[in-house]
């Protein structure tokens, strides 16, 4: 802790340390891009139906077909994004961000950036000690665990069907998980008092139940719908109906 902060309290050395950590991020991203290109060319890519490529009828060259389609998608996305940038840039910020920083004064409600909210709710939900682990460490374990658990997905979800499109029960639990995640984001921004504390605990528990119980059980008890025989069949079959 004191190594990260560079002192007993948050100050200039802390800022320096975090700046230098953040400037490393582009290099890490560059390394992950290399990994991405390797993965694309060696194990190959997946597709929305989750069926292996069987013939030339199943594929198209990336350029010009996908470069063009994706560029169109990017421009389409840029319209609502430009609306956000030019007309309501502060909608996701807080008025507190315009008050000069003062290490002696803590804001009444600490709220992180919006994309951290669900994880912040998980961190706050652990306010009890588990055996010899105190609540402080326990919170950090669950907070980190919420991301680490994603790396274990291949072993947690044993389903033979790759695509969720053909798994009726999985779909329901998927959307339940999304709703739960949105609720966590809401609770992360809410003050830690009253019913919010209880709800945050329920939602946090469900977040982990989804991965640790629902997914392994689902993959055993669910009967998936029949798969299309090839990618081209699924694509063209849909277009004609």
């Amino acid at each position: 802790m004191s190594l990260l902060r560079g002192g007993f309290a948050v100050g200039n050395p802390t800022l320096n340390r975090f700046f230098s950590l953040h400037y490393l991020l582009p290099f890490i991203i560059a390394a992950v891009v290399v990994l991405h290109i390797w993965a694309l060319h060696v194990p190959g890519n997946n597709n929305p139906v989750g069926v292996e490529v069987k013939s030339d009828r199943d594929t198209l060259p990336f350029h010009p077909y996908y470069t063009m389609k994706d560029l169109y998608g990017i421009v389409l996305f840029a319209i609502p994004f430009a609306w956000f940038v030019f007309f309501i840039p502060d909608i996701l910020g807080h008025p507190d961000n315009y008050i000069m920083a003062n290490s002696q004064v803590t804001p009444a409600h600490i709220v992180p950036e919006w994309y951290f909210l669900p994880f912040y709710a998980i961190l706050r939900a652990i306010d009890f000690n588990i055996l010899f682990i105190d609540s402080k460490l326990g919170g950090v374990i669950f907070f980190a665990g919420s991301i680490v658990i994603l790396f274990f997905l291949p072993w947690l979800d044993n389903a033979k069907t790759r695509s969720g499109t053909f798994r009726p029960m999985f779909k329901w639990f998927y959307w339940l998980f999304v709703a739960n995640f949105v609720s966590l984001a809401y609770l992360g921004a809410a003050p830690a008092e009253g019913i919010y504390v209880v709800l945050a605990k329920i939602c946090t528990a469900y977040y982990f139940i989804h991965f640790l119980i629902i997914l392994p059980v689902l993959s055993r008890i669910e009967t998936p719908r029949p798969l299309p025989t090839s990618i081209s069949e699924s694509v063209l079959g849909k277009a004609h109906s």
Partner: protein
Amino acid sequence: MLKIKTILAAVAMSALCAAPTVAQEHDTPHIEKQNWSFAGIFGTYDTNQLRRGFQVFREVCSSCHSANLIAFRTLSDEGGPHFTEGQVKALAAEYDIADPSTDSGTRPGVAADKWPAPFVSEQEARDANGGSLPPDFSVLAKARGVTDAFPWWITNYFTGYAEGGPDYIHALITGYKETPPEGVDIPEGKHYNAIFPGHAIGMAPPLADGVVTYVAEEGQEPVPETVDQYSKDVAAYMMWMAEPGLVSRKETGFKVILFLILFAGLMYATKRKLWSGIEH
């Protein structure tokens, strides 16, 4: 069709999950939203209103509140109060600016100087104001706001509502009550305000009807000299101080979005042409 159904189901479900928590919202005072000339995607500042607001700021607010980031020269900016350069020079010269390089320690201000602060230090400001620190005005209009409960704030995305700061300031200045409601204890030296968090505010009601005399220019209708009008004017002026580039931001945004829509149309046509030979 199936996709739209699942999305709708998801939205309905998340709304259901959020409903009980929304019902628990704190009873924050209701802040009346005002009609601002700079609201919406085509909003611009009203020069006359900014000038009136500047007059209120100069004659009333600035005796306690600083505006450390504001230079005199910005008062002549187009789209802002838009005073002439001569007016700004004359105005700056009325103020004494601390300058250790001169013999007397002060000199008359020039247009490049920042707005002089009423107090030398934070401690002095606190001592003169019963322990409360009058906040700096430079970006105060953006450092205050109106909180809309989840999920209703999302509608602000579509309406482009970003005037929470001026709305709050207007509500605060008009929110004083001489006698606090029963059961509310206001410590000595503090004042009851319906809007201020905790309701005990250190600032005495700063404005009263008629304290600032507006001089209507020829051909203009006289503006009412009421607290309501003063607070609107000064809130608009504070918004301009906090974001003098607001108008050019919105103008650029309009051009950018117009371009993007046209460009997306062209991209779509190209994509269709390219994919027309492919069965999909």
